[in-house]
């Protein structure tokens, strides 16, 4: 049991995170400093978690979708739609909780659309979700009528910038969602059934699994996560920017899932590992910012680290690591 916990702790993901944090610390000695001010925690580490929260939340939904051998390219656009919906509604005088509820419904509706295309019409996920990826920003612009809608509603702003027990609200939301989602998939049979659909959809159908309903559910859940992330981003900047909110974040979310070790071919998945992947990505971003390097380096360094993680995860390295001890026993014989 102890060795199992230990082997989990030294996965490529945790090693990568440790390495990134170490480099950050070398480049910026104050990286691990955390202070308590105005009833909440401040510091680079907290900042990593805070900034990484939207992608982490996207990655939670994306993990479920990718586990079914799918992908959801529309999450960035759904973020924009949710942000635009919430902002426009509070500005029109609706109470904040109604605005939040409608924004979440908008996310669910987008997810349902994706799910119908994938599960019922059997369209390839990458194409099916491309529809909202492209059209979604248009819809968001229609909602905001082409302008950036700013707002001063305290509830919405609290979602993006508030704090709870000293931790920034986005971190609290992301952590809660990650824990709830993990409990949901691992305490019920959902996790196993999702993996079964991802490994072999046809066999899943023959085994009496309602594969289509499950597929619908994961895309709806992914849309729901995207809507939450969209409101966090809108609350953070106190406005809804239909053009730029969540732009390219779908790629970061997919990356976080892949770094977390879930295969794009479907099957085994881990939500917590995907969240860890999102934190690794953000740790790199923040590290480059605080260490004073020009942000242009960001993308290059990021791709370097990603290549490293993917090589560590590849079947090739697995055989290399496995072969080494075998060769030893052969030699001792």
């Amino acid at each position, binding site marked *: 049991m102890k060795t199992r916990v230990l082997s989990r702790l030294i996965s490529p993901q945790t090693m990568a995170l440790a390495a990134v944090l170490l480099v950050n610390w070398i480049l910026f000695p104050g990286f691990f400093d955390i202070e308590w001010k105005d009833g909440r925690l401040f510091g680079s580490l907290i900042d990593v978690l805070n900034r990484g929260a939207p992608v982490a939340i996207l990655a939670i939904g994306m993990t479920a979708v990718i586990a079914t051998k799918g992908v959801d390219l529309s999450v960035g656009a759904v973020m924009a739609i949710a942000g635009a919906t919430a902002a426009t509604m509070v500005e029109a005088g609706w109470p904040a909780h109604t605005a939040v509820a409608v924004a979440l419904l908008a996310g669910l509706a987008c997810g349902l659309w994706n799910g119908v295309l994938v599960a019922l019409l059997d369209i390839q996920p990458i194409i099916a979700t491309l529809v909202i990826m492209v059209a979604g920003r248009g819809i968001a612009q229609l909602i905001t009528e082409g302008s950036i809608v700013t707002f001063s509603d305290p509830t919405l702003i609290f979602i993006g910038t508030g704090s709870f027990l000293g931790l920034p609200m986005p971190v609290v939301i992301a952590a809660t969602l990650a824990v709830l989602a993990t409990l949901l998939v691992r305490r*019920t*049979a959902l996790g*196993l*059934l999702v993996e*079964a659909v991802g490994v072999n959809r046809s066999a899943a159908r023959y*085994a*009496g699994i309602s594969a289509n309903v499950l597929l619908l559910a994961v895309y709806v859940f992914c849309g729901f996560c995207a809507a939450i992330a969209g409101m966090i981003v809108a609350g953070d900047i106190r406005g809804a920017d239909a053009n730029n909110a969540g732009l390219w974040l779908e790629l970061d979310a997919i990356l976080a899932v892949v770094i977390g070790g879930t295969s794009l071919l479907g099957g085994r998945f881990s939500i917590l590992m995907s969240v860890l992947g999102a934190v690794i990505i953000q740790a790199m971003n923040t590290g480059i910012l605080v260490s004073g390097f020009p942000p242009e380096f960001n993308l290059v360094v990021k791709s370097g680290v990603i290549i490293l993680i993917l090589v560590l995860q590849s079947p090739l390295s697995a055989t290399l690591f496995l072969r080494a001890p075998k060769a030893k026993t052969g030699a001792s014989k």
Partner: protein
Amino acid sequence: MTEPATVLQARGVVKVFGQHRALDDVSIDLRAGEVHALLGENGAGKSTLIKILTGAYQATEGEVLLEGQPVRFADPLQAQAAGIGTVYQEVNLLPNRSVAENLFLGHQPTRFGFVQKKVIYAKARAVLATYGLDVDVRAELGSYSVAVQQIVAIARAVELSGKVLVLDEPTASLDRNEVDRLFDIIRQLKARGLAIIFITHFLDQVFAISDRMTVLRNGKLIGTSSLKDVSPTDVVRMMLGKDLEILHPVSTAAEGASGPVMLSFDGFGKPGKVAPVTLDIHRGEVVGVAGLLGSGRTELARLMFGVDTAESGKVTMNGKEISLRSPVQAVQAGFGFCPEDRKADGIFGDLSVRENLIIALQAKLGWFKALNRDEQLEIAGRYAEALDIRAANHDMPIKLLSGGNQQKVILGRWLAIDPNFLILDEPTRGIDVGAHAEIVRTINRLREDGLGLLVISSELDEIVAYSSRVVVMRDRQMVAELHGQDISPKIIVQAIAAQHQEAAE
């Protein structure tokens, strides 16, 4: 008559993998113009021996002689060049290239470095004509049936090599007519003086075509003998080291013994798939379904399990009408289905043996009544033991198991839901003799336990052995229902073949 020349010979071959002796002092000799069957259960060492003969592996000890000269092939290409060609069960060709290109890939006739398409096509037509195959050689190989692809693969191997031909389970995915056609070709090649190694799980095919046979068990040579001198029982005894009841097909399933009607399909059909079928399934009976590939037997099974939705008729279970519009509904009604294509529709390759065993029960229980780990272990353990599933542990991915064990897992998956009605589509195809016997035993046991079973099989002996009744499919219709004394291979074949007589008239 002089003894034909020995073409390929292995002497005292040993192959060691780590601690495991996969082959232990095995010798075999192949004569020109003979079909030599290589027999043994899965894991007996057949493939290892073949791989050594064809250069894919190198022997740890012992030697291989080709026409009396010791040879050592570094890879299969060298063996091929020396005259040893191999055709595998799953055709190793390029389905998206033309038939002609596949025949000559890597050896295309060229002029000034350009491939001469016309010459290739002409040559391909000429080569295939000698096999009695008249197809458009310019069409993509993948557009033809597996049987045609197999013949192309054989033609390619013979063209490239021409002394020894290794056929590794060539008949596993062929229907009866196609097998006959393949045998004609094998006889023709035999007459041309090739030495042919034939690996198969089907004993009747061994006796139909082979001259001699060599049996391996657990990596050891059990014996080589002429097939004239042995009976099928002898061969099975050599392979298993024990007697097997299945080879004495006596229908133990007397129809009178079956219970009351459990399930009735009334005018159940779907246009273009299966003409309306009316069939009662009793408790404690096995209904065998016979028919050629494409006769509608698999389509019937899919309809009965709700994979395809019936457009006519109704189903009543214990007197109440039920809906069968999806497998989910079928599973809720207590149906189970082992599909024909195990890999595509049966197993979850990356999931563990345990998860594969509990998945149908979990699907039936729904999303929120999760089986916990202890329950999963208990269920997996119970059915692994009941069906003698051989896996190093139940957490390993099922894709690492042999075909026979995978089939047993799928069967166990359905037993775990405590089913009323099981549909088995070709449950014994492509699996080794031991697993085969286990599955046949299980079918008989389930019948005694009062289940209703519908079993589709191309193995007539097998159908005769366990069926209480036999339904014959032809041209997507149910054309006959055989009872009691009529359940014999001869009468089944007559019912299947009636169509051809009609066509001939």
